[in-house]
């Protein structure tokens, strides 16, 4: 499809997709993990103070 340059074009797009997908999945997995961790801490009766501090 890309002639003699296919060996450069296909890896460029494939690696871009892989790196961005990896970044997205890492961010989503971290979000889920931290949400679960907060839920587990709150289930033990540990609550945040008033004012929603960080």
């Amino acid at each position, binding site marked *: 499809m*890309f*002639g*003699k*340059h*296919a060996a*450069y*074009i296909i*890896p*460029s*797009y494939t*690696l*871009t997709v892989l*790196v*961005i997908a*990896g*970044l*997205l999945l*890492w*961010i*989503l997995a*971290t*979000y889920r993990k*931290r*949400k679960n*961790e*907060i839920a587990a*801490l*709150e289930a*033990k009766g*540990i*609550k*945040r*103070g008033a*004012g*929603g*501090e*960080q």
Partner: protein
Amino acid sequence: MNDVATQKTGFWTWLTGLANPTRFMGLADRWIPWLAAITTALLALGLWMSFNAPEDYQQGATVLIMFIHVPTVWLAMFCYLVMSISALGTLVWRHPLSDVALRAAAPIGAAFTLLGLITGSLWGKPMWGAWWVWDARLTSFLVLLIIYLGIISLGRALEEPTQAAKALAITTLVGFINLPIIKFSVDWFETLHQPASVSRLAKPAMDVAFLYPLLTMALAFSFLFATLHLMNMRNEILRRRIRSLKLRAAAGER
């Protein structure tokens, strides 16, 4: 005049209101699906335009690599600019969200820089006959990746939040010197890399058949950055909440 003052006050109130993490999280939860949808639509359009662009008379089909190489490089540098403004926010205005924005942007910037290096290498081999040359543009861009990795490592190494925020802000601002070096390296030094062909004061040195897909892809990558950044800022706020809850639990046990 009064309207302008009211608008300024309104914006400042909105910005300071975001210092409340709960308010910011609510805003992020509302914005992320919209940003993701716009990113997907723009990426689809940009890819369609890229794959329908004609082959370049000199570069042939490798011009397709430009449509991802140039946006990743732009975003790698834009991300560092965002981090530098955030660093000023930490040191000058002491806005609590500044440090969150800085930390959340670093891994995204590192990923874009890595992609810029990989796609540049894959474009360089058929065009220059070399995967890599130690010239000013390529080397300064490699330095950008090392700076990103340094900032990520520093953030993980320092436990105390206020000290960490200041150290990260100062390190980021010191590293900012690399951005003009990357940008102007092609003008200041002898290099294989071509000079600027889009961001020129005169007319861009590129045919519209390539310019429009490139600008669409750049816009798509900008929205991609905004989406990922907001998502990762949300993660950083959650990390701080967990730390706060654990400290509270530890204090209760005493």
